[in-house]
């Protein structure tokens, strides 16, 4: 009976401290319709407002700088940590340092998202610096979603930096999504893989109007038999600009594959700069990149099924950004 009561109280607390707008933001960035199961830490306008820990997952406020330390005990199975950030004020630059220790042989989902609602005329910015240590044999799925809204002229800026150390035999799945409302973003991702470690990155990006997005992903295959797959899909519309830098480094007998696909529309600009470097004769590295408009055959096919050109275009883009 007792745990049920705890959940109920927390829920009340959530309703009190977060208004409808906050909850909408949480839904957009963390798929949260209500209080998350498991551990969570909700940060709003530069302050932690709500937290829950579990028997296996502890969250501790950092003493020397803003941010939290998240500890996942070894062998923790099937639990999740939600750490959404919402920014609803203008003229704010929130910098946060979060460190995650994902214990040996655990299997967890971490959802970090940032939603900015800025109706003002000045900038709202959130820079999240995330450090992960994924211990031996652990499995981590890390989802990071960005969302912005508000009708003001104030810029909505997000500059996340994610550094992941993947230890022996650990498996990391990374999902980076930015679909709406962020005016400017520079995303830096650095990942190092030890022996037998495995990484899959999926990136989804949509920019429009005058938005600007830069994504830099560096993956170092340090250990023998490590492998990495990076799948990046983006759509650039209107006058927006996107730059991608992929740096895949093979230091051992390892396999790496980058697949990067961009659909370009209107007056947008997309630049993709791949680099693959091998420091070992058994490193196998592949880079595939394509930028182009929507294939006309795809549009025609959907139109022959009765869709209008606009509907066909929306269907293709929606599928592509999945």
């Amino acid at each position: 009976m007792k745990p049920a009561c705890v959940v109920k109280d927390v829920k009340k607390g959530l309703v009190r401290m977060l208004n409808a707008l906050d909850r909408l933001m949480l839904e957009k960035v963390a798929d949260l319709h209500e209080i998350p199961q498991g551990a969570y830490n909700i940060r709003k306008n530069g302050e932690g407002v709500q937290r829950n820990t579990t028997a296996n997952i502890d969250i501790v406020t950092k003493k020397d700088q803003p941010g939290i330390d998240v500890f996942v005990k070894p062998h923790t199975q099937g639990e999740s940590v939600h750490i959404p950030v919402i920014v609803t004020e203008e003229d704010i630059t929130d910098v946060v340092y979060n460190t995650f220790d994902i214990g040996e042989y655990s299997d967890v989902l971490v959802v970090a998202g940032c939603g900015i609602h800025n109706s003002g005329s000045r900038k709202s910015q959130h820079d999240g610096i995330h450090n992960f240590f994924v211990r031996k044999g652990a499995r981590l799925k890390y989802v990071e979603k960005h969302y912005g809204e508000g009708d003001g002229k104030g810029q909505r800026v997000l500059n996340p930096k994610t550094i992941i150390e993947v230890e022996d035999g650990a498996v990391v799945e990374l999902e980076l999504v930015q679909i709406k409302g962020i005016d400017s973003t520079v995303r830096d991702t650095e990942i190092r893989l030890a022996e037998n470690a495995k990484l899959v990155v999926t990136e989804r990006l949509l920019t429009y109007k005058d938005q600007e997005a830069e994504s830099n992903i560096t993956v170092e295959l340090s250990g023998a038999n490590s492998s990495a797959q990076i799948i990046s899909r983006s759509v650039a519309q209107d006058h927006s600009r996107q730059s991608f830098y992929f740096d895949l480094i093979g230091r051992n007998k390892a396999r790496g594959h980058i697949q990067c696909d961009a659909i370009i529309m209107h007056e947008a600009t997309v630049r993709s700069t791949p680099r693959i470097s091998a420091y070992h004769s058994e490193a196998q590295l592949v880079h595939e990149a394509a930028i182009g408009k929507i294939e006309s055959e795809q549009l025609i096919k959907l139109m022959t099924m009765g869709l209008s050109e606009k509907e066909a275009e929306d269907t293709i883009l929606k599928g592509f950004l999945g």
Partner: protein
Amino acid sequence: MLELEKVSWQVEETETEILRSIDLTLAAQKIYAITGPNGGGKSSLAKMIMGVYTPTSGRILLDGQDITQLSISERARQGIGYAFQNPPRFKGIKVEELLKLAAANNPEKVNIYDLLYDVGLCAQDYLERDVDASLSGGEMKRIEIATVLARNLRVAVFDEPEAGIDLWSFQKLAETFTSIHQKYDTTIVIISHQERILELADEIILMVNGKISLQSTKDKILAGILHNEACLCSERCEKGVGQNA
């Protein structure tokens, strides 16, 4: 029901006419087969009917109404359908979504499972898959056919539906064509090089060099083509009986 009057088409950049003054009348509820050498203009004719290309000159009528200037989407809504020779693939769109989109305007409730069954695919194995490069050529072709079978059409054009489909499934496919033909009273046009498909047709149309060089009942044409009495070359050849020679 569908009439093409002196329809010609030439690609803007080049001088060559790809379709040359085509006159063709398709009657309601019949099955037609179009055959002829590679590059003869069969797919171009199909795309012309679908509205993918607009004639340089000539008119297209559907039930007496001029549809020459109608867009692809408008023609689709009037009940014209086309199964591509080389169907495009879509990243991130599932077989189920594509078929549901295809069936969206069919007033009859379409069962997606039956649809896949009709093209010889097991629904459980395919509904969740993306219509992307991971599908084999034959699988893609079958799904393409299913997107046309999903619709309630006046005219359905299938562009080499048998290409890449294994022999074993061939018969099933033939039955499927005949059954939608009966179910929706659809006029069916099948572009094909296969004798077994040609045999399904009431009439066979022979296209050579951008022109309809012969249109007749299947018996007459098959007798001619299959016994190699008529040569399909556009130039005079060894046999000396080139169509346009």
